[in-house]
């Protein structure tokens, strides 16, 4: 077997194995995501750290070394030279932009969702609502350890290996599917989509894979442009912090299912699709196919 393929297999075995064991141990028996208190959800979500732990373990097993920068490294260095700072700036604001765009699409698809005072239900004052994107960016950056746990592994190890083994386009799709499947136990207990949708849980897993393919394109692009996993970490961290003003005006209880899944997810998925297409066009422009 090809050496790179073997290394990737070891990584995937460790990453899936350790995370799924963690989910099995940490999840209270028989409880679904929405039945768990928020503190327990955060505890279960610590499973996000295992991809980077698996990266370290794989490098130790395969004796690949722990270089921080350059070829075959963990890509932990930060360089702002040669216009790379632009991608760091993009990383801070992109999640906010596509999240708001997703909310706009949701409202277009399902105008009955609009609730001018829904933020009060969330316990947020109006003046606080307008600060949410900034808070999302700050908490996404300072509390980025969980996002680092995932991106350090997916972008820092898996994607470079996949790109060596297959063409870039296929690598992006396969990488996204792997990443989506890794979330499967959480999707199964109702994380992200809940359990009240037709086609549960398979449709949820398919939507998660689609989401991961699209977000993965953006994250892999910024990683390749900067040679560092940090912009991807920041995008992922800020993305998870949900930096949006319009979310305070969308009442999910009035939301209806579109294609069997929560309409807000469809909005976000379309917005991510748009972002991923823009990124792919930029990628192609920089590297014309001969």
């Amino acid at each position, binding site marked *: 077997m090809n050496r790179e393929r073997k290394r990737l297999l070891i990584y995937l075995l460790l990453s899936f194995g350790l995370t799924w064991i963690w989910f099995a141990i*940490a999840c209270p028996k028989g409880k679904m995501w929405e039945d768990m208190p928020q503190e327990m959800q*955060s*505890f279960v979500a*610590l499973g996000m750290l295992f991809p980077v732990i698996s990266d370290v373990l794989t490098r130790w097993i395969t004796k690949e070394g722990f270089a921080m920068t350059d070829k075959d490294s963990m890509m932990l*260095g930060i360089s702002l030279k040669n216009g790379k700072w632009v991608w760091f700036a993009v990383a801070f604001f992109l999640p906010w932009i596509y999240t708001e765009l997703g909310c706009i699409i949701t409202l277009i698809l399902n105008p009955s969702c609009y609730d001018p005072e829904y933020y009060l239900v969330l316990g947020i004052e109006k003046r606080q609502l307008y600060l949410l994107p900034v*808070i999302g960016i700050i908490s996404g950056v*300072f*509390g980025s350890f969980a996002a680092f746990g995932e991106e350090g592994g997916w972008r820092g190890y898996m994607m470079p290996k996949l790109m060596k083994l297959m063409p870039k386009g296929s690598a992006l799709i396969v990488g996204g599917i792997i990443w989506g499947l890794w979330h499967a136990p959480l999707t199964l207990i109702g994380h992200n989509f809940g359990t009240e949708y037709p086609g549960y849980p398979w449709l949820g897993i398919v939507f998660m894979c689609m989401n991961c393919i699209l977000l993965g394109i953006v994250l892999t692009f910024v990683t390749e442009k900067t040679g560092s996993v940090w912009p991807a970490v920041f995008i992922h961290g800020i993305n998870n912090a949900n930096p949006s003003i319009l979310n305070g005006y969308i009442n999910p209880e009035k939301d209806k299912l579109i294609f069997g899944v929560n309409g807000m997810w469809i909005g976000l998925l379309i917005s991510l699709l748009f972002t991923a297409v823009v990124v792919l066009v930029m990628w192609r422009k920089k590297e014309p196919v001969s």
Partner: protein
Amino acid sequence: MGGLLYKDFTAVNGKRMVMILAIFTVIFAALRIWFGSAGTDDFMTENADGEYFNLIDLLYFMGEFFMIYLGAFFVNSMAPRIMEYDEKNRLHAYLFSLPVSRKTYVASKYLFIGIALYITFSLYMIWHVITMAYMMKEGPVAELSQTVAGFALPFICLLLFMEALEMPMYFLFGKEKSMMARVAFWMLIFFVIIWFLMFGDLTIMKNWSMHAIVKWMEKHEFALMMFGIISPVFSLAAYYLSYRISVRLYERKEDFDE
């Protein structure tokens, strides 16, 4: 840059520290799951105010509390250690004979302290999540834990700001003199507190309690939110400014040395 960072990592016994912290975190999480799943009702007790709380919760809270406060002060003490390491081993002459500029050298010190603070804060967050997982939802320990968590980021920002003030002194005066200035500063703070305790108006502390702090936090939620936004931005800006000043001072020092 990577080499300089690795040198500092070695100077503070980084490998051993990482191993110890990783093992502690695994044990911390494993015991939490074990105790949490087994049920901890036997460890319930009552405080002076008649509030019930769990002793295991209290132990875990103390763990996360020490992680953020002792951990952060430990990072704060790293700066003089990495400076001393270079001075003691007379590394400056050797380093600057290599293609390493003074700017890169200064940047490596700032980056190292920044990374150490980021890791401390991240570890604290992990320990806080582990602590809160099986904690009683109501009660004094949960309140304490949430209050400490609320102040964790501003506290880290305060330390970053203190580093921003201290670091230029290390580059200008060296470790010995800077440490003297640092001790003098803390002695001054200590004497001010002693003076306050002996001669100050202690009645203002009469109504201080954790409940009062929590109530105060709830009342001033927006102000705290603004503080939470401004303090990281302000401390990062101060840290960057301090780096620029240190580079200037250190390059000028080169002129004097020559």
